[in-house]
Every structure is written in C-alpha cells, then in structure tokens.
C-alpha cells in the first residue's frame, strides 16, 4: 500500500532534517507512488529509469519543499517536469523508439494505457503533425518513407515532426 499524504509529509519533514531512516522509507514509498504515476504516461520499459531520475531530482531538490504545503503536489510537479524532459530526450533520438520490442513482453493493459495517454496528446495536434510523428517516431519509418506515404515533402515531414513534438511537450508542461 502506498503511504498517504500526512505520512509522506511527516517523512519528508524528517528527511529534510537529515533523518536517514525516514529518508529511506520516504524514497521507497515515493518510488512506488511514482511508478503508479508514470504507468499511464510512458511505455512500461521506461518507467524504472524515469522513477530513478525523479528520485535523484527529488533528493537533490529536497530543500524546495515547504512543510506548510502538501507533499504530493510537490512530488507530482517534479515528476511532471522530468516526464516532459524525458519526452524531449526520447523523441530527440531516432534510435530510441517509444515502443521498443521488449514492450511486447509487458502486460497488454499497460501498453494500451501508455498509448491511450499518447493518443490523447496526438488528438490535440494538427493531423499532419500527429500522422508523421506516429509513422516516424513510433512506427519506425524513415523520413523518406513517411514523405512518400503522406505525400508531404521530406523537409515538411521534418518540420511537422519538430513542431508537433514541441507542441506535445508544451501541452504536457501546461497541463495542470
């Protein structure tokens, strides 16, 4: 069972004061909470890396939590920031596909949920941008193949991918 808000807040206050035992419990519980948080946001095989990244950010920036304010929104804000950063990195590198082969080994439900979240983002993009991002970044087609399939020029495919990804990152960042 994941800890509740008052427990998290109590553990965090102790952690800020250097209590190692509280810190250990807090980091473990935060890890579980983050796993749930990311389950609907990234493909399953990327979750653990992202959770580790957020835990490191959490640890480094632990002084920025104000004990007068709730803990979980603070953690969620850091998680979302790292998620946006992660999306940028993943989409930037052609070698890193959103849906690698090993995703098939994870539960179907999780894969579907990760896609649902991405599909909702795609729904907010112009059709031409969503189409080429899906073909190149998820389907693994080359720029030329996507250009041939869609009838767009290669430069336009590149521009649409770039603009679409930028808009997706902005949409995620702005979502409250």
């Amino acid at each position, binding site marked *: 069972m994941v800890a509740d808000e008052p427990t998290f807040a109590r553990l965090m206050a102790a*952690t*800020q*004061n*250097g*209590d*190692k035992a509280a*810190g*250990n419990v807090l*980091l*473990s519980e935060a*890890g579980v909470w983050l796993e749930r948080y990311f389950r609907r946001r990234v493909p399953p095989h990327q979750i*653990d*890396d992202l*959770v*580790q990244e957020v*835990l*490191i*950010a959490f*640890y*480094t*920036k*632990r*002084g*920025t*939590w*104000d*004990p007068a*304010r709730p803990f979980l*929104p*603070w953690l*969620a*804000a*850091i998680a*979302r*920031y790292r998620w946006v950063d992660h999306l940028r990195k993943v989409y930037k590198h052609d070698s890193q596909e959103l849906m690698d082969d090993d995703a098939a080994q994870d539960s179907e439900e999780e894969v579907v949920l990760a896609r649902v979240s991405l599909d909702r983002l795609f729904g907010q993009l112009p059709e031409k941008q969503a189409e080429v991002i899906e073909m190149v970044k998820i389907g693994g087609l080359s720029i030329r193949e996507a250009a041939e399939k869609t009838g767009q020029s290669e430069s336009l495919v590149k521009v649409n991918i770039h603009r679409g990804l930028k808009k997706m990152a902005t949409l995620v*960042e702005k979502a*409250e």
Partner: protein
Amino acid sequence: MEKYNNRADLIAAMTEDLTPVRRVKRSDGIALIAFTTVVAAVASIAVFEWWSGLLTGEASGYFLITHGLLLILGAASTASLVSGALPRVGARATAPMWGAAMLATLPIGAVLSLLSGHESHASSGLNDPVAFMCTTASLSAGALVGIASVLWLRRGAPVSIERSGWLTGLAAGSLGTLAYGITCPLDTFSHVGLWHVAPVAISAVIGRLVVPPLIRW
C-alpha cells in the same frame, strides 16, 4: 549522481549520503530580489544623481503613475517568479500578465498623444535624444535584478522553465527601470510612456530567450 541498475541500490546510496538540508524559502527569494533592486537604485544614483523633483512635487503625474505601475508589475512578477522556484501543481498567478497589460496602455497612450500633436516638448517621442540612454541604463540596472533572479531560480527547482524566463525578464525590466527611473528628470508622458516602458518589453524577450538554458535542472 550515477545511475544504478537497481532502484534499491540507488535509494541505499542516497540514504547513506543524506544530510540535513537548508530549506529554500520564498521570503529569501523576495529579499534577494528586493535587495538587488535597492543596490541597482543606489548604483543608478551614484552614476546619474538623484532627481530631487521627485520629492519637491515637480514630477508630473505621468511620471508617478508610470513608476507606480512599474513597481506593481515588478512586485507581481517577483512574487510569481519566486513561487515558481518551488515545485507545485495548480492554478498559476495571472497578476504579472495583468500588470504587464496595464503598463502596456502607457506606450499606446504616448503614441496616440504624439500622433495628436499635443506633445511639443523637445524630448518627445521617437526623436527623444535621451531615449537610448534611458533604455540602456534601465536594462543595465535590470541585468543586476536578472542575475539575482537566475541565482534564486538555480537554487530552487523551477518546473515551468519558459514561464520563469518570461517572469525573470519582466521582473528585471520593471524593477531595473524603476531603479534607474528615479534619477531621470524627464517626466513628459511621451518620454516615460515610451522609454521607461520599452526596457520592460525588451527585457521580457531577453529573459525568455536567455534564462531557460541557465535554469534547466
């Protein structure tokens, strides 16, 4: 920090290194930016001399209104900027946007006034001989505020990087212009409405372009 294959190892390593941490407080950020604004004002007075007309009642209403709005915009953007260094989710303050909108009415009014031909003062409008000096001096004073803001943001954990860039530019521009403005003896509507507002817009754009890479974490 290095990446671990196993999350438990990462947690164990972080727990081992855990030490008490100094909390990042909003009041510290506000005090830092307020102090830097005072330093910028003192530096402006040292370079350009204090304009006594401010206290003798010589300053025009336009001058007082413009600098009052700059103060309000500076306070609103500082408050939002400082809060933005502490991660949170939820509604964002819109005060800086409304403050900037209020300030934007001044240059519009100044241009309309110039077009109607009512302004005949030598230092009016686009031919203003001291426009460049007022703009650059305001931007220089604002740079001090901008540096302090970036240092504060780097201490914190801003999660809306682009917004923090805009806010840094707005705070630096408005407080920097205010700090310099108290030394400027030109108080016509067209002068303060144009050249004591332009640095805010320029600074906001610079902030948006320059600050994000400096505060990304």
